[in-house]
């Protein structure tokens, strides 16, 4: 799980071009949206594609978005649970 979390942080930094951040700057439980990293709706769409491209996971229901993308940890859990 720790390895996945680190890898995810690296992907997020690259995909969203969070230039000044390193994985250590993002807390596992830190909120990604509104507070914390304060990402917006465009970032959410970027993250959906990230899941698809890197992990082959298609977010089945849009309503799941907020839960899945709550933090890096919740994303990692979702990936682990849904990976074939």
């Amino acid at each position: 799980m720790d390895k996945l979390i680190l890898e995810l942080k690296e992907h997020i930094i690259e995909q969203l071009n969070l230039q000044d951040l390193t994985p250590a700057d993002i807390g596992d439980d830190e909120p990604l949206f509104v507070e914390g990293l304060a990402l917006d709706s465009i970032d959410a769409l970027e993250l959906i594609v990230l899941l698809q491209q890197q992990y082959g996971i298609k977010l089945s229901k849009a309503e799941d978005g907020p839960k899945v993308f709550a933090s890096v940890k919740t994303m990692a859990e979702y990936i682990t649970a849904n990976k074939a």
Partner: protein
Amino acid sequence: MTEVYVAGLGIISAIGTSVNETLSSFEQHRTGIDDIRFLDTIYRGQLPVAEVKLSNDQLSALSGLPENVSRTALLSTVAAKEAWVDAGIGSPSKFRTGFISANSVGGMDKSENFFIDFLKDAGSGDLNDVKHHECGSITELTADSLGISDHISTISTACSSSANAIFMAARLIKHNLLDVVVAGGCDSMAKFTLNGFNTLQILDEEHCKPFDENRRGLNLGEGAGYVVLVSEKVVQQLHKKPYCKLSGYNNANDAYHQTASSPDGTGSYLAMKGALEKAGLQPEDIDYINLHGTGTQNNDHAESTAISRLFSSKVPKMSSTKSFTGHTLGASGAIEAVLSVLAIEKEIIYPNANHTTTMKEFGYTPVKVFLKNQQVKHVLSNSFGFGGNCSSLIFSKI
């Protein structure tokens, strides 16, 4: 300062290649949204769009341009020629004549082709396919075919582009810099825009239902629209009565987000309010609003909020004609300007197709059937776009 009159109209979209065809489509409630027929994309059969139902060859024959130029230029020239002939001015050289057009992605339909070969090898790809990539190049193809050269300009403010073109045209006439301006805009279907809107997940996989509680997004469309604007002096020399006046216009910025509209519709509100002020009208003077009404959750929420705020309890009749034409992006402001003028001229109000459920937070239902014999003195036409660019135009009966 002179008043600005509308003397000619031209329109092409999924519901017709002329003013007459367009009007009869509305009357018979025939929307132009359908499966993809012409665009070469993997989304054929999946995403409905509003294509003009003619091939490039057919459009070439109609426009007089070669068939290998951008479809955007073909559509543009068909509508601009219709508008010019309709105005009955004759030679553009009789007056100081300008051409102000608008589009969002220039000759992108051709650039997409070019890129397929170019990405394999930077030395390949037919340069004829990128020659007209620039937005302005599309404008010139049409201006040259009309023989207009005194003033040439192109505006690109996403989905409000052609409303801004009409706005600028009116000001050049008011300042006595030009006597006649053909103003409007165009955009053709392109993989670039279809995929772009698809990444934003705002394309409805079924027919769009603007201002409906259960709206799910927009359908892309294509087309072109032009109005011929003229000064009082020119009106006196024409053999026909102008359609109406362009009485108000305004441009404001939402300054909220690159793509999303603010929840309170600040930009939309300011655009409409400013247009009313310039026209010297009160909200209750407006008989019909041609909505921007894309059918996305976000736009229709912001626009309805702004309308409620401006019109309070006296909301006029309104509809989104995008439920017929699809969202034609850079062409939409001009296509809807042409429809607004025709609403006054023909005393009609257009239906908003596919509407079943009134928006809860708004409480008003758009017009659902084609209405005849309406008193339509003042029409407000809204066009809002990415980058927060919001513009409104008001046309008034003479």
